[in-house]
Each structure stands twice: as C-alpha cells, then as structure tokens.
C-alpha cells in the first residue's frame, strides 16, 4: 500500500475564488420568523383589509366622540325612533294646543276643509296633534275612531282603535298618539242604540313634522330670547345620520359610546385570560409529570362547564352595585371561564418544545429555567399566542353581545353594541334601523377579527414556511 502514483499537477490558481460572471443568488434574502410572517400577512388581501377595518373601528370608538359631539345620553322625545336623516325640518308650533271639541252647537265656528266623505281637518295637521271632525249621523249615540297607515280594505280593517265619543253630537277627535310625519287614514264608525252598522267614513291626513316651541328651546335648537320670532316657521332639526332610538337618543353617538364598552370587553378580557392561560399552561407544561396531570385535570373540569350558563351565573353572582355599569362582573366572569382553553393550548405547545434538540443543548450548556423560558419557550409560543388572542376577541365580543341581549350584560343607560341590539329588537317591526346598525357593527368587527385571525394563523404556521407566498 503505497502512494506511488503521481498526483496530477494542480495549479495554484485553481484555488482562487471564481472571478467570472456573478451567479444568481440561490437564496432569497434571509428573513426571520417575524419578517416571514409579516410578508405572508401582507400578501393575504382579506386579512390586510380586516386589519384596516379594525384600525378604523378603533379610531371610530376612540376619537369618534371628539368629532361627533352629540351626547349619547341626551333624550329628545320629539324625535323618537326617527330613521336616519340629515336635514329633517320641523314646523315650530305653540306649546299649548288650542283645541276645543266640536259639538253640533258650535259646528260653524271652525273653518273646515271638507272631503268627499264628509270628514274634515281642523287646523294644521302636525306630528304634535291631528284634529278632525265629521258630519253628524242622524240617530247615532256615539262614534268610534280608528287610525290606519294604509287605506282600509273594509270595516274589519280600520287599524288602531283610538277612542270612542260617547255623545252623538260630539263630532270631532284629537289624536296625539305617537304621530309621525306620514299619511294617516282616519275612520269613523257611528254607533247606534242597536250597535254599529256596516257604515264608516275615512279621511286621509298627512301629518307635517312639527316641534313645540318649548321643546325647540329646551333642546337648544332655537335661541330663547327671540323664540317668538320662530313661531310658525320651519326650522332644521339636529341631524341624526343613523337615526335615533326609542328615547330619541342619537344612534351614532350611542354606537360610538357602545363600541367603547364592547371593544373594551372584547380586547381587555382576552388580553388578561390569554396571559393567565400562558402562565398556567406554561408552568404546567414545564413542570410535567404529576403536577402537570393535576393542573390539567382542573382545567378539564372548567372546560366541561357549560360556558354560557356559567357566564350568566357568575355574572349574576358577582353582583352589580347601584350606579355600576356591569362591565366589571362580565369581565371577571369571562376571564374565569376562558383561560383554561388557552392554558391547554400553551401546555401542548410547551410539551412539544421541551423535546426539541435546541432546548436540550441549551440545557447542556447550563441554561437556567429563566433563560430557557425567555429565550426559547416564549418566542416559540408567540405566534400561537397572537393567533389565539385574535380569535378570542370576536368570541368575547359575541359573548358580551349575547349577555347584553338577554339583559344580563351591561346595565342601562350604559350602551354596548349588544344592549343596543336588545333595545332595537323591541322596535324591530316598525323601526328596523335600531337593530340593524348595532348588529352591523358587531358583525363587521367579528368578521374583521376572524379574517385577520385566519390570516395570522396562515402567516405563523411553520408548516407552510417552505412555500412561496
């Protein structure tokens, strides 16, 4: 065994670095975990849009009330449940209604606009009151008055019974029951000794939007010192871009205020319970063995609790003192019931990480618990944490909305999107905007957070690392 064969002569220059044409780099610019995640997120169009929507919603609730300076608690009983409007006008009328019932004896005192049915309007019909009179019917001992929003089909379809005149010669009626600036169809049925006959007459009256002088001054729409100047004039009412609720409160202002409650609970509760879950799950996973088993058994039990039932139970158990909004009990209940599922997730991740070779080598090099946790464990669960947090927000918002909806959430007058929905459902059939707007805000928020969560999950999922975006 000898190396008798001559080695071929190798020139020194063969070992010089290649100086010819530069080759294309085989690798992409190296990007760390966060940069990669961010790049993938940027490529995800729905997630990106959602991120902007979320920023927009946060701005809406945080600085919205600096721009839309309307008091969300101010009631305006002249504009109850009014639909969205910008330039609503109203006729200013005197506070006192000058109206006397019309009897046969003083029939001629009134200027009448006679309609074909023998019924006639008295004065100007406004949303404050509508007065009308009719031709007396011979032999009638009284009259029954109805109101409808459509032309009645027949005597069975006259609408809301407003009242009865008990005397045959009392031939007028004043209606001031929740009038709106729309067309009304008033019908009168004469009542005879033997009951009512199939006989009625109907008049169509269009109510003009009106506001009493005192109300207009009280709401600050017209200056007090020259109020008489405005009497009988048409003025602009305050704009309500999203309408008003059943107490005449501005919906936009209430949505801004309600958003504060909803987003506060939606963000703060997950922030705390994700942190608690991280702590508990981290410790459990790190300790392992018997301690882990006992800690996780406890978690299993809490997860087995029927969530919404216990949400309600705890919410009630923590009680609400006078003058409190009920936000705090809800926060506590939400945190108490939600941390275990986060703990379970984190614990699973930590158990996996513990087996990683780099943890092993770090331990061999003498790393302490503190170093291991901070340098290796925490950075590796951050992605999971962020995704969990993002998905926890919509479910917290949903829970708040659910509780407030069944009347177990925030206490009036504090608004939240859920409690606004609860208010809105009462007037759904007549004024759907009171439910639709808060429901829309909840839905958009939840949708945005869900899409962002999907995007984050894809971005942080290490399995898809090799694929090009």
């Amino acid at each position, binding site marked *: 065994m000898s190396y008798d064969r001559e080695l071929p002569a190798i020139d020194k220059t063969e070992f010089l670095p290649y100086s010819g044409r530069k080759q294309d780099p085989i690798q992409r610019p190296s990007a760390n975990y966060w940069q990669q995640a961010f790049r993938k997120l940027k490529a995800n169009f729905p997630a990106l849009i959602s991120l902007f929507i979320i920023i927009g919603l946060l701005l809406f609730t945080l600085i919205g009330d600096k721009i839309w300076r309307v008091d969300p608690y101010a009631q305006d009983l002249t504009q109850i449940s009014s639909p969205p409007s910008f330039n609503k006008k109203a006729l200013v009328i005197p506070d006192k209604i000058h109206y006397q019932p019309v009897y046969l004896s003083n029939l001629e005192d009134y200027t009448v606009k006679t309609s074909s049915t023998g019924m006639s309007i008295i004065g100007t019909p406004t949303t404050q009151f509508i007065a009308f009179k009719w031709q007396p019917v011979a032999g009638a001992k009284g009259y029954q008055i109805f109101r409808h929003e459509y032309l009645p089909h027949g005597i069975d379809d006259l609408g809301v019974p407003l009242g009865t005149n008990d005397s045959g010669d009392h031939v007028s009626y004043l209606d001031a029951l929740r009038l709106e600036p729309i067309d009304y169809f008033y019908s009168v049925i004469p009542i005879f000794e033997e009951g009512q006959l199939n006989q009625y007459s109907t008049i169509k009256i269009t109510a003009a939007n009106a506001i009493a002088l005192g109300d207009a001054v009280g709401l600050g729409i017209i200056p007090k010192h020259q109020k008489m100047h405005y009497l009988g004039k048409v003025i602009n009412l305050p704009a309500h871009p999203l309408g008003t609720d059943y107490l005449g409160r501005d919906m936009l202002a209430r949505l801004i205020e309600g958003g504060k409650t909803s987003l506060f609970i939606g963000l703060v509760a997950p922030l705390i319970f994700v942190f608690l879950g991280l702590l508990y799950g981290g410790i459990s996973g790190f300790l392992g063995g018997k301690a882990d088993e006992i800690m996780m058994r406890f978690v*299993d*039990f809490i997860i*087995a*609790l*029927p*969530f*919404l*039932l*216990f949400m*309600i*139970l*705890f919410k*009630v*158990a*923590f*009680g609400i003192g006078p003058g409190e909004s009920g936000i705090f009990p809800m926060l506590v209940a939400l945190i108490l019931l939600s941390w275990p599922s986060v703990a379970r997730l984190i614990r699973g991740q930590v158990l996996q990480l513990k087996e990683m070779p780099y943890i092993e080598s770090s331990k061999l090099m003498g790393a302490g618990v503190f170093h291991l946790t901070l340098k290796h464990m925490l950075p590796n669960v951050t992605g999971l944490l962020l995704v969990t947090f993002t998905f926890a927000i*919509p479910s917290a918002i*949903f829970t708040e*909305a*659910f509780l407030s*909806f*069944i*009347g*177990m959430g925030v206490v009036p007058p504090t608004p939240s999107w*859920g409690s606004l*929905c609860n208010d809105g*459902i009462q007037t*759904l*059939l007549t004024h*759907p905007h009171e*439910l639709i707007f808060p*429901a829309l805000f*909840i*839905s*958009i928020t*939840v*949708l945005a957070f*869900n*899409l962002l969560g999907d995007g984050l999950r894809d971005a942080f999922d290490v399995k898809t690392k090799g694929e090009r975006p």
Partner: protein
Amino acid sequence: MNHSSAQNTLKKYPLLTYIAKRLVSGLIAIWFIATATFFGMHMIPGDPLSSEKQVSPQIRKNLEARYGLDKPLLTQYGIFLKNIIKGDFGISFTQENRKVNDIIREHFPISALLGLLALFFASLGGIGLGALAAFHKNQLSDHLIMIMVILVVSVPGFVFAALSQLGIMKVNDLLHSNFPIAGFDGITYLIVPAIVLGLGTLAYITRLMRSSLLDIESADYIRTAKAKGLSNGQIFVKHKLRNALLPVVTVLGPAIAGITTGGLVVEMVFAIPGLGKYFVEAVQQLDYTVIMGTTVFYGGFLVITVILVDIFYGWVDPRIQVVK
C-alpha cells in the same frame, strides 16, 4: 387474587374499561358543575326571600326554615348534593308549589325537539353545501357558499332570529298567509327557530365537509376508483362522500353543546317555552333552585352527550381508536 382477576377481565374488554373511565370522569365533572353552581349561587348578594315584599321576622324565619336557608352553608351544600343524587332538584322559589323536576320534565322535551331539528337542518344543509362547494371547487357556487359561511359565523344568532321574525311577518303580509311568528303549538312553530339555531353549526359543517372532501381528492383509493373506470358521480357518492363524512361526525359533540346553549336566545326571541327560556327567566328572578337545577341538568346532559358521541366515533370508524 380477586383484584388481579378483575383487572384481567378489564383488560379483555378495553372498550368497557374506557367507558367506565369516561363515566367516572364524567361523574366528577358533573359534581364539579354542581359545586360551582351551588357556591356561585350563594355568592349572589341577597337571597331569594329578600325580593319578596316586607314580611315580619317570624314569617321570614319560617320561610327560611322551609327552604333550608337557615342552616350553615356546608350543611345546605350537603343536602343539595344528596338531593341531586336522588334526582330531586327541589321546589321553585317563585312559582308556587312547582317542582324543578316538573319544570325540567315539561320544558326540556321542547328544547330537545328544537335542538334535534336544528341539528338535523345543520347536518343536512352543511353536508349538502359542503359537498356542493367541493364539487364546484373554485367556481362561483363554491365562492358564494364560502362567503355565506363566513358571514353566518360573523352575525350574532339573535340578529338572525329577529330578522327571520321580521321576514315571516313580511311574507305573511304579502301572501296573506299565517306562518307562526312566535310561541309554541306544534312542530310547525319550531321550523324557522330550528333553522336559525342550526345556522352556526351548518356553517361549521359546510367548511369541514368541503375541506375534508378536498383532502380526500388525492387519496390512493380515489385513484384506484378512477383507474377502475368508475364515473365521477359514482366516485363522489361511494368513495368521497362516505369517507368525508367521518370528520363531520366528530363535530357532533361540540355542535350539540353549541345548539343547547344557543337555544337560550332563540327560545327567548321566538317565545318558545323551552328550558332555556325558563333558565333566563329564573336568573332574572333569582329563582335559586330552578337555576341550580337547570344548570346541573344541562351540565350533566352535555357531559353524557360528549361521552356518547366519543363512543359513537369508535363504532362508526374503527380506524379511530377510542381506547388507548
């Protein structure tokens, strides 16, 4: 000797061991639910008698004695547990002489019927839509279905409930028909509420069905089926659909839990006299016994359902090993 033979018997029947283990942990879970309910209820400031009109101290004492409120907390807890084991949830505080057991017996069947209908709609609709979406992958119908799924998940259930009521109202106006809007008088009253209740689960099943169908796409047995010359339709029904259904079965457990609690809102909005509506009313009136009874009942129901569903998986799909 005896002990080890018992162990051997258990080893022979791993499924029985598994069921026994699950039942024991289920019982502990129910005990935990009962305990949490009991102490949660007793944290509430005031007591069920404090809302009654002013009564003399003597009458109050008598009332407390009648309901056992004068005893120490732990004694009350003991009595509570003992009664639960006996299956006796006590007497309602607000409804004269009405047993909680009777309330559950009368109103739970309505909730259960509503839940079953909802589950039926959800699985049928979800499987159908999911299959449709997967079949037309990346076509318009697929996109539409997936958008619908995302939207459904983002809108609170009570909004759907309220809007569907409004919808029925409009339809009734338009067609001069008389579809029931609220209340309960026969199964027709439950159809729309059940659809509304099942929507969330429907969306979830649709998503799952679609992705599990697409996962199967590249499976060996599908290639074999194609090689055998089966038609697309045959492959879809006989091979894809049947295998894709399996993951869907796993959703049943959480779905039943979701539908049960979701029922609270739907029952409230549609004024269906189910147990959920009763529970909410009981909480509003601080009716201790009814709250505790229904919570423990619901908790126990859910725990047992989850165990049954788990055992069911193993039976449906032998590849899933419930027994370790």
